[in-house]
Structures are given as C-alpha cells and as structure tokens.
C-alpha cells in the first residue's frame, strides 16, 4: 500500500466570539475604520430582517426567509466582490444583495409576491433568487465559463447552504468548475440546519470544505460569524480566481438563528438551549465589541446607525406597500422576447377575465 494523494483542510478565524483577535489581522482589517462599513451593513441587514418578519406576520409579505445570524457571511461576501462580478444566490442572501446594490424596496417587492422585485436596477447581471436548491450552482459554472472564454477578470460567486451540498447539482457544478479551472467561488453558509435536518444527517463528511477534494480544488473552512475571516477568505479566493487559479469552496460556519422561514416553527425540532448557545457566537456583537475595544465605535454612533437603518427600512417597506398591483397581462409579458400568436389569444382571454 502506497500513499498516492494527501489532503488537508484548513480552518481560519481572526476574532473570537468575544471580539478578541486570535491571530494577526489581515491587511484590510488593521485599520478598524475599514471594518465600519461592514458593521453598518450587518446592522442594516438585521433591521431589514426584523421588518420583513414583522410585515409577514401582519400579512403584508408572503413567506420570508430570515438571514438572522448570517450577517457576517453576507457582509464578507458582498463587500469582497467587484461590481461586475456576478452573484448567484438562494433565498437567504438578501444581505449580499443590498451590498451589491439591490434596493430594499426591490427586496420587499419580491417577498410580497411581485416579480418586479427581481428587476434590479443595479446589479443588472446578478441572478434572481434561486429557490430550487443547488440548481444555480450549475448556472454559476456557465457564467464563469463565459467569463473565462472572454478572458475577462470577472468572477462568479455562488452562495449556498449546508443542505445544498447533498444535491447532485452541487457536485456536478463543482466537478466541472474544477475541470475547467473556472473563476468561481462557492460559499457554503453552513448554518447547521436545512429546515429540520441537522448538518450531521446531510453527510458523514467531517467538514463541508472537504467536498472540494472530490472536485480537485481547494476547500477551506472559516468562522462564518467572524466577518474578517469571511472577507479574508473571499479576498484570497477572488484574487486566485481572477489570476486564473480556478475555483475555491469556502465553508463558513454559522448558525440559523431564526426559523427556516416564516412558515416554519423551529422549536419543533431543536432545543432552546442550542439556540441560546448559538446566540453567544453571533456575528454583530462580536464585531461591535472589537470596534469599541479599538476605539472606533461608541453608543452614540450605534444609536444613530440604528435610527438611520430603521428609517430606510421603513421607507422601503412603505414604498413596497404603495406599489400598485401588477396587471394580469404581466404574466405573459416577459415569457418570450415576443409573445407568440398562440399565447396572444390566451392573454386576451386572461384580460377579459381580469
């Protein structure tokens, strides 16, 4: 028996749950002022999230998927990307979308059951929400292939959950991305749960990062509640991809602090203790402590920020609620570039029907 291949999976964390550095910070984090924009986005995400849940509870939005607990992953991912990179996502990455330029009103519109919410004014090239788990991973491969074919220094960034790593599309996509050394970064937000199914039921693999071994490229694990770790891993993966070094899989360890969606009741399948423990690791307090310790943040700034976020969120929610219903003909209008004759008849019937 000879050993013909060896693999190691690395884990990285910069800030511990108490906001203390556990190793020298990467370049961008040395000046705490660079971290403030990330902190502001994270707070905004939480304000948005709370509002969306409140709107859903009062019947003003449809089912909503909270991002509570994912703020660091999303701030790290969104802030690292370049404008003309392409982001492909599931339903839980509204925070990344905000940073990319999607407006809060667009987000609320989408969740209110209006396709117009996906017609982002900015970023025009990002993909709409992909509800079918893992399908968008193969789309990311196609996007990255196009970028590589055209010799563009752009990267496709594809976000997914721990549950998604069990699906064939995930593997087919990773494997192909490895084969062609495509400029794509896969970010798994391992929040420990796929609805009621815990991480251990998804796979016997010790880490999700090691899934990349099967595809012949690098997988790394980071503390997903540490925005510095996420951002640093993203920076490295994006730089590698732009330089022709191919794909990276980043497993960001975090926790879904909310129910799966507003249609779910997580108390059915997980203990309050587990959730309480997870709250001790959540990403915002940790970063606030860190910034405060380094003199870059204080109570006054915090209060102002909260006020600002709540105002923006409130205004966006109102703008969504004020948006007139789409017309019935709308369901025909973007199906094809030109409405085929056979459908024009159906459209007329639908309008008569209105």
């Amino acid at each position, binding site marked *: 028996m000879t050993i013909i291949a060896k693999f190691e999976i690395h884990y990285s964390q910069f800030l511990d749950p108490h906001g203390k550095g556990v190793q020298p910070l990467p370049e961008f984090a040395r000046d705490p002022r660079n971290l403030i924009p990330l902190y502001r986005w994270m707070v905004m995400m939480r304000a948005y999230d709370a509002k969306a849940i409140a709107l859903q509870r009062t019947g003003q939005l449809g089912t909503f998927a909270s991002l509570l607990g994912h703020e660091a992953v999303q701030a790290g991912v969104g802030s690292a990307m370049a404008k003309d990179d392409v982001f492909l996502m599931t339903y839980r990455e509204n925070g990344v979308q905000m940073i990319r330029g999607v407006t809060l009103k667009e987000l609320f519109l989408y969740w209110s059951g209006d396709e117009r919410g996906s017609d982002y004014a900015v970023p025009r090239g990002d993909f709409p929400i992909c509800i079918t788990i893992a399908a968008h991973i193969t789309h990311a491969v196609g996007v990255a292939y196009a970028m590589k074919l055209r010799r563009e220094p752009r990267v496709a960034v594809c976000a997914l959950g721990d549950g998604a790593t069990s699906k064939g599309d995930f593997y087919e996509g990773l494997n192909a991305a490895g084969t062609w050394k495509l400029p794509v970064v896969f970010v798994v937000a391992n929040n420990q749960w796929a609805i009621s199914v815990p991480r251990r039921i998804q796979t016997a693999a010790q880490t999700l990062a090691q899934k990349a071994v099967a595809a012949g490229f690098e997988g790394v694990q980071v503390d997903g509640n540490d925005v510095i770790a996420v951002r640093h891993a993203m920076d490295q993966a994006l730089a590698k991809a732009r330089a022709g070094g191919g794909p990276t899989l980043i497993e960001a360890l975090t926790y879904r602090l909310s129910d799966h969606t507003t249609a779910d009741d997580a108390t059915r399948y997980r203990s309050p203790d587990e959730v309480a423990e997870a709250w001790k690791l959540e990403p915002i307090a940790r970063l606030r402590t860190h910034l405060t310790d380094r003199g870059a943040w204080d109570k006054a700034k915090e209060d102002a920020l909260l006020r600002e976020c709540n105002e923006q969120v409130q205004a966006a929610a109102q703008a969504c609620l004020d948006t007139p219903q789409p017309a019935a003909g709308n*369901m025909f209008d973007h199906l094809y570039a030109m409405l085929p004759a056979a459908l024009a008849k159906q459209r007329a019937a639908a309008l008569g029907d209105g």
Partner: protein
Amino acid sequence: MAQITLVEAINLALKREMENDPDVVVLGEDVGVDGGVFRATLGLTERYGPERVIDTPLAEALIAGMAIGMAAEGLKPVAEIQFSGFAYATLDQILNHAGRMRHRSRGRLSCPMVLRMPCGGGIHAPEHHSESPEAMFAHIPGIRVVYPSSPRRAYGLLLAAIRDPDPVVFLEPTRLYRLFREEVADDGQALALDACFTLREGSDATLVSWGPMVPETLAAADELAEQGIAAEVIDVATLKPLDMDTVLASVARTGRCVIVTEAPRTCSFASEIAAGLAEEGLLNLLAPVQRVTAYDVVVPLSRLERHYLPGKARIVAAAKKALAFA
C-alpha cells in the same frame, strides 16, 4: 368517526399501513421529527422510529432512486417530495427505472413504491411551490398517477397506492390539505384505483376534474344548478391508467363536456381527456369540448396568482358556452 382534513387523512393512511405492514417505510426531507412541512408524516417517527421514518439528505433524485432500490429489495417505500416543484429531478428515475423495473426484468423484480408530493397553487407560496406536474407523470408508462380531492378519497386511495404492487405517483392538492373536513373511518379499506368517481349526477353537461380543482368544479355545478342547469361532476382521481369509460358514458348522456385543471393548457391532462372524447366520444358531442386550464405561462408569484388559477367563474362560463350550442 372523526371529522378530519385531507392532510390528516394522509397521515392516518400512513399510520395504518406502517402498522399493518412492517415493510412500509417513509422517506423524504423533513419527514422525521418535523413531521413534514405540511405535517403529513406527523407522529410517525415517535411510533416507528428513525429507521423506518427516514430524514434523507437534500437530494430528490436520491429519494426516488433509493425508493426504487428499496422496493426492488421487497420494502414498500413511501417517499415524499417536499413540493412538486422539486420533483422534476425525480422524473429520470421514475420514467427510466421505476416504471420499467418489472418490464425490464420480466417480473423478476418489481417496484412497489409510492412517490407523494404536494401539488397545485393557491397557498400564496414562493416560486416553485405551486406546480401541477400531473401530465408529465401521466405520460410515463408502467406507473400509476393518483390525485385525490377529499379526505375520504385521500385515505382510501393512499392505502391502495401503498398496497399496489407497482409504482404510484400520489399527488396531493396542497390548498385542500386543510380546506375542509370529512368523516373518515380508519377502517383500512382501500378504494379502487383506476376508477373515476362520479360526485354528482346531472344530465345537461359533464364537468370533469381532479385534485385541487374539484371543489371549485363542485361550486360551479352548484351555481349552474341555481340557474337550472344540471351538471354531472366527475373526479378522475386516478389519472393513469385512466377510466375513460366513465367519462365517455357521462358525455354520451349529457353531450357536453368541460374539463378543468390548473396546469398550463398545452399537453395537459385536460388535453388527454379532450382527445379521448374527440376519438371515442365524438358522435355524442353536442358542443365543442371546453378546456378550462391555466394559461401556458409560468405560475406567477402570489400577487398575480388569482388571475392565473382557473376559478368557478371560468368553469361556469365554459359550461354555458357549451350549452349555447343548439
């Protein structure tokens, strides 16, 4: 006898058959402790344990393929796909393997499995949660496709499906899950598969439907009755193999037929029934067949859903159009 909802009837049938037959196992995403996102499998883990009530990894092709392997080995798997919008990934397995195992091996192996899934719209859910894939399944040789429309029929047909020695795709109308209650005796009696149910007799027109559109069709019949029009209402229930004889016999009496489905029109199951009438019932038709269907568009998100789903008004209008022919 308890008054129960359709989803409770599904749950009751599952319990009854897991109790009766140790070979019955349940598998799918969140079917265990959570009891399924609609609670169809509630309480099964507590009674039968996680080995027989299996939370699977998130992988629909796996769920279908694994059920095929289990069934060929002699188990009777009842697999759940969380929403039919995620069931397209199972088509390869259902068409290329479940429907062929018996044929391919000349009966040496078989595939007594059930693939359950919630279908249809009207619950204001996100994208992909309102699909009506029945026609695609009904096109597949070697399987059965069942779509109940009431608690009692759900109970009896699910028992029949689990006991059937061949694969059954069992579609469940999501928006009827809790819409109304019915008395259901937990007597272990299966209903016959491959047979339509005539829910109401009438001599003026035949209304044919299945699954989620049946209550709406009955409501249309009520409205027609108020206007002095006696509509016969047929619940197809088993789409494949289709009991076309019951439909033909009814239309032979009424001369008029309205077929109602919420799937997009082209190549829908409404087209199949209309084709059967054009072929075998033409001489009895006094008026063009009317298909009342969804449009050939993507199910819109919830804000436009009510414009998409056919409702009572469209059914009544179609029946009256048929009756306008002399």
